[in-house]
């Protein structure tokens, strides 16, 4: 099973970084890394390293980037007529699904981690003085949050692509889902009682970054487990129904 997943992941990576079409992928990556790694930290300065609300960026940005990566996974194969041949191979459905999720996660998570050293350069350039750097704990928190949100985005995007007839449809569905997922809490906060709203905003602005990260991590662990389980159950159900053919 692991070798099957690795084979699919290898293919996905080769396609993501293939010479043909690499320019558009590279542009997206440069914009992403530039925004998260240089522009925003430069604007925010040294508090980028410690402000609790920055934790939201490490959650949001990987999901945002995931749109371009996952929409193509199944819908693209379907559009280009490669899915039929892939399904005629010995690969189990679960391996195909897991391989595509793994490729999306490693690609987006890797790009996010790439922006970490860049952000340090931007911060130190903007505010000269003692060297600004991430502690091991901060680095671990950033890496863990980015990983959890990458898994969430990848599982959601791949499942969406699975259900979409075209890449465009998959992109629209995923974008809409992301918009709803992030706009809804913003409006939800407005509905909270004034005291709770103030408390939440204070926690995000003046609170302890570690605590905010822990809450976010707990939420995303639950979401990831639910989504990945849903994806695997989908695949397992499919395998069972295939083996029941005309039994």
């Amino acid at each position, binding site marked *: 099973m692991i070798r099957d997943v690795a084979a699919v992941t290898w*293919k996905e990576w080769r396609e993501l970084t*293939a010479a043909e079409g690499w320019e558009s992928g590279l542009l997206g990556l440069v914009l992403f890394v530039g925004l998260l790694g240089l522009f925003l930290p430069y604007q925010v300065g040294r508090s980028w390293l410690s402000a609790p609300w920055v934790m939201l960026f490490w959650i949001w940005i990987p999901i945002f980037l995931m749109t371009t990566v996952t929409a193509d996974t199944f819908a693209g194969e379907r559009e280009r007529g490669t899915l*039929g041949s892939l399904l005629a191979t010995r690969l189990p*459905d679960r391996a195909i699904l897991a391989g595509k999720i793994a490729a999306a996660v490693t690609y987006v998570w890797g790009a996010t981690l790439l922006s970490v050293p860049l952000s340090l350069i931007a911060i130190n350039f903007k505010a000269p003085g003692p060297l600004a750097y991430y502690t091991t704990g901060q680095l671990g928190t950033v890496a863990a949050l980015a990983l959890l949100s990458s898994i969430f985005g990848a599982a959601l995007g791949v499942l969406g692509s699975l259900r979409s007839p075209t890449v465009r449809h998959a992109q629209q569905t995923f974008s809409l889902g992301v918009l709803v997922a992030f706009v809804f809490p913003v409006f939800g906060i407005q509905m909270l009682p004034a005291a709770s709203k103030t408390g939440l905003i204070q926690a995000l602005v003046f609170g302890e970054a570690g605590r905010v990260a822990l809450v976010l991590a707990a939420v995303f662990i639950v979401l990831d487990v639910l989504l990945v389980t849903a994806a695997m159950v989908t695949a397992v159900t499919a395998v069972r129904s295939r083996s029941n053919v005309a039994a």
Partner: protein
Amino acid sequence: MTQYAIQTEELTREYSTLRALDRLSLEIPAGSIFGFLGSNGAGKTTTIHLLLGLLRPTAGRAAVLGHDVATEIDEVRRRTGALLDKAGLYARLGVQDNLEFYGRIWHMPRRERRARSEELLRQFGLWDRRKEPAGRLSFGMKRKLAVARALFHRPDLVFLDEPTAGLDPVSAESLRRSLVDLVAQEGVTVFLTTHNVPEAGKVCDQIGIIRSGQLLASGSPEELRASAGSNRIVVRGSGFTEEAFTLLALRPEVERAETRGGTLHVWLVPGSSAAPIISLLAGCGVLMEEVVRETTFEDAFLSVLGAEDHEPQTARVARGRFGAVRADEAFALSVPEREGSELSAGVA
């Protein structure tokens, strides 16, 4: 090894109102090249999809390499290769990477993958273009690469759905030659679908003729030729005048007549005697150096179809508002890529 590579028993597939495959019973010996011959929408692709477990049969059963398709599909897929109706190449991946991916799928060791891809790419004349994205290849080269990919992991049985469709004659011949050479080298069983009659006659040692989902005849090309009877006279000579053609056209036993490069070909109604025709030609002053009565495989194919000229009633179980639905149209509308698999949801 099992005696038969493929066995089907009353295999049937219906799409709501249309029966795309009608009680197909086949036995294909291991090591043979089996050609499934029929026009578009005859049920050839449906058969391949059923044998690969990409579709579920409505009734009947099938075994591939001794494994029941319904219960041991993983084993079937492990030992087979396939070129489906769409080549399924990854356009952005390099030529060699397309093969590399399939080698990884079948857990081939790295060294073996390298050696095998070089062997096949050289055989199909693609070695010099191995680094190029597959999307940049010509149509013929893509078909060759797709065939190479189907054979890459040395399957015991390979399904080829119209491998030469859309190719120019030179590319088609080149692909056929490479395919026959490879099959001879590796002893693989081939299940090949085509609507190209001469191709089937040249390449295959067993042939099945299918129409509207029903198997009309099967056997070796020689057996099919023999069963059709010799209904063509080939006359080598000169003096094929307008008068001779006019008189031939008046004879009730003559279906048609034409000249091809200095020879006269006369097709007779099956069962007719050639003697009156030869007398007629002699009377018209035709100088006959050689007269041969023969049947090409194409004649045999047309004879089989002619004998079944009426449309089989069971093939189309119902007609829609706009008349009969062609099998391939219904297929395109309703078939997921691996039926029962969530991965193919949303295809229809």
